[in-house]
């Protein structure tokens, strides 16, 4: 907005700082900057004064001191003699573990429920809308607590699996659901197992190359080569052959009852399961709505146009509908992943030792370094969300409609 009549030069008056649109924005910005500086200066002075009277100073030295507490889930070596820094790293890894598990499960659930809400089957449709409404409208903290109560109060203790007529049995002889967590088989990587893994990785690359090749053949010659079963064969066969050639290096370690508890296999804590499934089911309800909206956003004319070109139904889906629907689905999907990561901080309510539980919980209480701990905690979450937003921006730019 510029004024039409130019005032004469050199006629600057002080009131123009407020009344002239050319200068007013500078006045506003100056005032805003001064206010911000004043507020931060005031807070900073208070902080300095408070720290001086308490005889404290801001320092991150406590990170290298021994932590003195145990963590019940340790992806890397950790004892109570390890440092607070290592405790925080264990916490970060636990956060990432539950976030990745929950994201994967939520995607599967959400896509299934979203597609089911569009199904022609009335009963299925209604059931899915009940699922979505029930989970979207109740706080995730309550769902976490409900599943945690199931894990700790309903499941039998390990000694129920003992004796001639045990009151509880293992599922398929491999999974034990106890109130101390779920015990499941875990692979043991023997000598030469890396060959099998390498073969499998190579066959993934092979499958991709094969699919590229079929596309090229189709575009060059119009000949349609089979894609489904050859891909599957390339993926599985070499790895299986190599597995037997190397003398079966990978074995499964089954949990078994020894002493008072199960030994062997992997133990997933009740708190991990509670957090994982509560976040997955809760966020799955949101993803279901995104998926439904994304599919509905592709107008019916697109499907009909593709059909009139003679495409078969599953090709219409994969070539016409999905590419357009994904552009609508993916951005909210990623922000849902971000929500899962942030909501995983609710771990503190069920005693799962994620980064909020170690750094923001026990370390904070033991050292009394509230400012430093909360600062580090925020920095961790900020890093994750900003990097995910950066990825999302790149994606959004790559799928942006190329308009003339």
């Amino acid at each position, binding site marked *: *907005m510029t004024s039409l009549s130019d005032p004469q030069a050199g006629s600057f008056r002080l009131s123009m700082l*407020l009344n002239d649109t050319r200068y007013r*924005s500078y006045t*506003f*910005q100056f005032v*805003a*900057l001064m206010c*911000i500086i004043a507020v931060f200066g005031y*807070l900073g002075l*208070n*902080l300095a*004064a*408070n*720290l001086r*009277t308490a005889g404290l100073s801001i320092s991150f030295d406590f990170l290298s001191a021994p932590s003195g507490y145990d963590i019940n889930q340790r992806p890397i070596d950790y004892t109570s003699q390890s440092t607070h820094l290592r405790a925080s790293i264990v916490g970060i890894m636990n956060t990432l573990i539950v976030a990745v598990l929950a994201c994967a499960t939520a995607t599967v659930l959400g896509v299934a429920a979203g597609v089911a809400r569009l*199904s*022609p*089957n*009335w*009963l*299925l449709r209604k*059931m899915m809308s009940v699922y979505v*409404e*029930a989970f*979207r*409208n*109740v*706080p*995730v*903290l*309550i769902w976490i*607590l*409900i599943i945690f*109560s199931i894990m700790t*109060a309903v499941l039998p203790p390990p000694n129920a699996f003992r004796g001639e007529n045990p009151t509880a049995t293992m599922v398929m002889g491999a999974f034990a659901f106890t109130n101390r967590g779920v015990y499941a088989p875990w692979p043991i990587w023997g000598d030469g197992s890396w060959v099998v893994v390498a073969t499998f990785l190579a066959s993934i690359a092979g499958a991709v190359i094969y699919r590229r090749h079929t596309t090229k053949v189709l575009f060059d010659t119009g000949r349609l080569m089979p894609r489904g079963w050859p891909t599957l064969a390339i993926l599985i066969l070499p790895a299986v052959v190599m597995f037997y050639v190397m003398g079966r290096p990978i074995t499964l370690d089954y949990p078994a009852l020894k002493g008072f508890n199960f030994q062997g296999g992997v133990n997933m804590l009740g708190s991990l399961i509670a957090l994982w499934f509560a976040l997955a089911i809760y966020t799955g309800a949101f993803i279901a709505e995104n998926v439904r909206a994304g599919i509905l956003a592709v107008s019916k004319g697109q499907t009909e146009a593709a059909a009139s070109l003679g495409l078969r139904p599953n090709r219409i889906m994969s070539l016409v509908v999905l590419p357009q629907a994904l552009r609508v689905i993916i951005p909210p999907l990623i922000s849902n992943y971000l929500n899962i990561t*942030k*909501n995983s*901080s*609710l771990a*503190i*309510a069920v005693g799962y030792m994620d980064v*909020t539980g170690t750094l*923001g919980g026990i370390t*904070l209480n033991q050292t009394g370094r*509230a*400012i430093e701990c*909360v600062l580090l*905690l*925020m920095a961790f*979450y*900020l890093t994750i*969300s*900003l990097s995910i937003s950066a990825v999302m921006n790149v994606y959004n730019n790559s799928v942006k409609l190329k308009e003339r």
Partner: protein
Amino acid sequence: MADLSRAFVRRDMLPATPPPVGETGLVKWLRENLFSSPINTVMTLVSAFVIWWLVLAVWPWLSNGVWTTTSLAACREVLQGKTGACFSVLTERWHQLLFGFTYPADQYWRPTLGFVLLFVAAAPVLFFKLPRRLLIITAVYPFLAFWLIWGGSITVPLFVALGFVAAALTFQALAKQAMAQAALAAVIAALVVWWIGGQADLQVLVLEPVASRDIGGFMLNMILGVTCVSLSLPIGILLALGRRSDMPIIKWICVIFIEFVRGVPLITLLFVANVVLGYFLPPEVTFDLILRVIIMITLFSAAYIAEVIRGGLAALPKGQYEAADSLGLDYAQAMRLIILPQALKISIPGIVNVAVGLFKDTTLVSVISMYDLVGMVRGPIQGATEWNGVYWELFAFASLLFFVVCYGISQYSQWLEQQLRTDHR
């Protein structure tokens, strides 16, 4: 002409035959919606089995429910090994779940009245066909509710309200001449009234004062939810406008604030309110914990609302901005009369999502040891010897309360979208 007497000519219409049985009513509906194809039939049967299984699991629990005992052990005695819920925990402790465990029992009528009045106060905002004059009730409500819930002399909220009235009147009287001077005068008028109120210390219509730490249960969730949503809406609008502003300093202040708040979980902000904020204030200033939490949640949701409204602003065609400019409206007028009404209308679903999410997030205060509904369930009630081991009844009750409120809000927003839809479809 042919001989008509022998020709067969029908003179009246045949009555319409009823459609085949398979094409009408229930049978047709069943066939089209449940059994249209083999896959569909299988899905129907599986779904029906799941529902049947759920009903079998839940029905005995509900129907055998015990409502009249005083402890879980007594419940188990009544049930004698049968499956059944122990709803007595609700009949015994409902007041704690709703009001917290130290709110004076003879004063329960106050928050209840406040809750009922909330609907009266919200009605003019929610249903714009009601006479506009009713908005006065909405304006009065916050002060009335504060007096009802926290108690004390009515003069405290009265003088606060009078301060705002004085400021508004001063501003209106002087705004014609000069905006900035009017704003300054308004602030001074408000401060003068508040200072007088602080000096006067009158004790009129005194209700028994209730300390903030005595406030808990679902009431706390409602207080936090209603206060924070209504405060964060104006702040969110300002942040959104600031982020789209062409003044770089203001824009960057808003961008940094919004991205920072949206990047961290609410729990860390609550930690800040609980343990860090004290370091940044002079030692003699002691904030109430509820107030600190309200400030943090408000800032949190303001950042989210700002992003929603920014989306609404960006969705408006550029022509609307240019049309406002070409009419000669200044920035404030263009925003108030042209841009914001349309942008807010577009943003309604998003704002409601944020509001519902925020209301659900108020349960997080239980993590910093405030006794909201979830805090009451996990703390004093499950910790009591007579109710140790009661889970599902309490969680079902808590879920039900939240479901009713959140589902109600989302249904209202869908209705509002219908009402505000001005395009022709």
